[in-house]
């Protein structure tokens, strides 16, 4: 007999494991990663040091992370339909909120692991940069601070994008399907909007700091964070409601 | 349906007739013909259902009817066995013969034959020795 407390943990683990395995088995992707890593190491070796190339530029990619969180959440849910397993999943004797929350958690974990790997990768590159070109060690500390700030922002805004991803996947399976373009518009706008929380270019084109952590950061920017969590929970409740009553199977 | 042999008994089921009656009749006639010996064990409900590819409930019903007629007996933990009582088997043979004759007579009756005409036909077909 399944133990209620273990059910959530198992649902989470199962989705996380299946999704991770799917990513790992894409051999061609590893080829790209290896190629990009080699290019970056070479670029750092040649143009690093004097700030003609700084690994910190790579943190600009954080701009895309909210979109990635959305994408993972969307695809983990959508796969139940596209793989023909939705009948098994939705007839499990557990509430829709439990089933969806487990998927949300799996998508979050998946996204965070990816982000963390990226940040660690870039940090290693910076370490290589400092060692090779004999820059001051204090640069590493500075780099870590910037990374930490970026990571913080990515983490706090992801619930909104994760919940929106679930809503997009469920809306597509209901009579509300015509609203789908609206969800995509919110996706594009919000993804961009959150990006601006992150990125704040200095005068010389280098990234100096992050908007919310900037000295001139307005208090309302910080308020955006709990507000986005509130909206995320509303979006999640919407997805739960749709899967409960309105699915067209 | 194809002919199937289970535990020495031959079966041929027709899906347009009740299966329960066919299983029952065919076990009875197997006993009468001696295809299965007195006191011998008959296949379990599951084996019979698997061999005939039918619902075990149907086999169960037929077996219960055999038991009611005392043609079989179930020994706890050992299975179901054909009765060892030759009298019961004799009885069933005669019953089957009576049924066949009744059917035969009914048919000829419906064709308008009288009893003496039927007796004459029987004799001409080699039944005169009796």
């Amino acid at each position, binding site marked *: 007999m399944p133990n209620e407390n273990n059910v959530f943990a198992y649902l989470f683990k*199962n989705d996380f494991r299946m999704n991770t395995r799917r990513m790992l088995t894409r051999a061609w992707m590893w080829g790209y990663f290896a190629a990009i890593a080699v290019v970056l190491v070479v670029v750092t070796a040649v143009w690093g040091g004097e700030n003609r190339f700084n690994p910190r530029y790579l943190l600009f990619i954080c701009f895309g992370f909210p979109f990635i969180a959305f994408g993972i959440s969307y695809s983990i849910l959508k796969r139940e339909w596209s793989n023909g*397993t939705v009948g098994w999943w939705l007839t499990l*004797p557990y509430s829709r909120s439990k089933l969806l929350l487990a998927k949300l958690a799996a998508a979050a974990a998946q996204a965070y692991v990816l982000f963390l790997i990226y940040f660690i990768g870039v940090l290693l590159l910076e370490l290589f940069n400092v060692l090779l070109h004999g820059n001051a060690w204090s640069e590493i500390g500075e780099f870590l601070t910037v990374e930490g700030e970026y990571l913080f922002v990515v983490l706090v805004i992801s619930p909104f994008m994760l919940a929106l991803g679930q809503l997009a996947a469920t809306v597509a399976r209901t009579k509300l399907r015509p609203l789908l373009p609206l969800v995509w518009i919110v996706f594009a706008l919000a993804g961009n909007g959150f990006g601006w929380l992150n990125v704040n270019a200095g005068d010389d084109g280098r990234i100096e700091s992050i908007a919310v952590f900037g000295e001139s950061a307005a208090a309302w920017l910080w308020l955006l964070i709990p507000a986005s969590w509130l909206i995320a929970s509303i979006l999640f409740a919407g997805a739960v409601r749709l899967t409960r009553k309105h699915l*067209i199977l | 349906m194809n002919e199937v042999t289970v535990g020495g008994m031959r079966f041929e089921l027709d899906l347009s007739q*009740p299966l329960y009656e066919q299983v029952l009749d065919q076990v009875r006639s197997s006993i009468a013909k001696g295809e299965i010996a007195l006191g011998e064990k008959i296949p379990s409900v599951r084996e019979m259902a*698997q061999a005939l*590819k039918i619902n075990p409930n*149907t086999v169960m019903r037929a077996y219960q009817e055999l038991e009611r007629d005392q043609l079989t007996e179930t020994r706890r933990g050992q299975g179901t066995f054909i009765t060892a009582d030759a009298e019961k088997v004799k009885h069933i043979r005669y019953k089957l013969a009576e049924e066949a004759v009744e059917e035969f007579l009914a048919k000829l009756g419906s064709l308008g034959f009288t009893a003496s005409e039927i007796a004459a036909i029987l004799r001409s077909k080699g039944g005169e020795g009796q």
Partner: protein
Amino acid sequence: MTKAAIQGSGLVKRYGRRNALDGLDIEIPENSVTAVLGPNGAGKSTFMRMLTGLVTPDQGTLRVLGEAPSWKLNGRISYLPDRARWYEGHTVAEAIRWGSNLLPGFDAAQALQLVEQLGLKADMDVKGMSKGQEARLMLAMCLARDVPLLVLDEPFSGIDMISRERIVAALIDSFSDRRQTVLICTHEIPETESLFDHAVFLNDGTVALSGDVEELRATRGSVQDIYRQLYV
């Protein structure tokens, strides 16, 4: 008549202008094997999905094992969805672990025995399976649950003859082992009709005919014959 495991009255389900169920009154007897038959679009799958709460009726009442369908009730129903696939990221052993972690009444040891009996191995990847192998795995997942109601929506569709025969044999074993209400929806009538105690023929979302199969055989012929009489 024995007690009803499922009772539906006046069930209506609309999809746009079409009524998939159109005032369906239906009773499924307890502890028997019932076939739900009819051409495509007769409302079979809609009715089956309603039992597990995947589809909610627009009108009418439905009682399954004495309750209204809900996710909680699904703990007592073993359901094979129509056109279902299994998780392609799983091996057979992982599928069984999925069952023991999530499905009430699931017996992992029995599941393992069933998959082996059905010609599968624990270390097989679902991804590399033929359609017939996958269908056998899914049936094993359903039969390994000791629950009062088993609902199989098209367990034989589009699979090879050997898989079909193995599935029929596994079903007969399962029926011998436990008292369970079984509902099967299928188009493979000649191969399966000897398994049914009871049959319900649906047409345009209502019951065209229903009854004890043995009685139907005595009065109207085989299930296949009746199907032809009703729908041709």
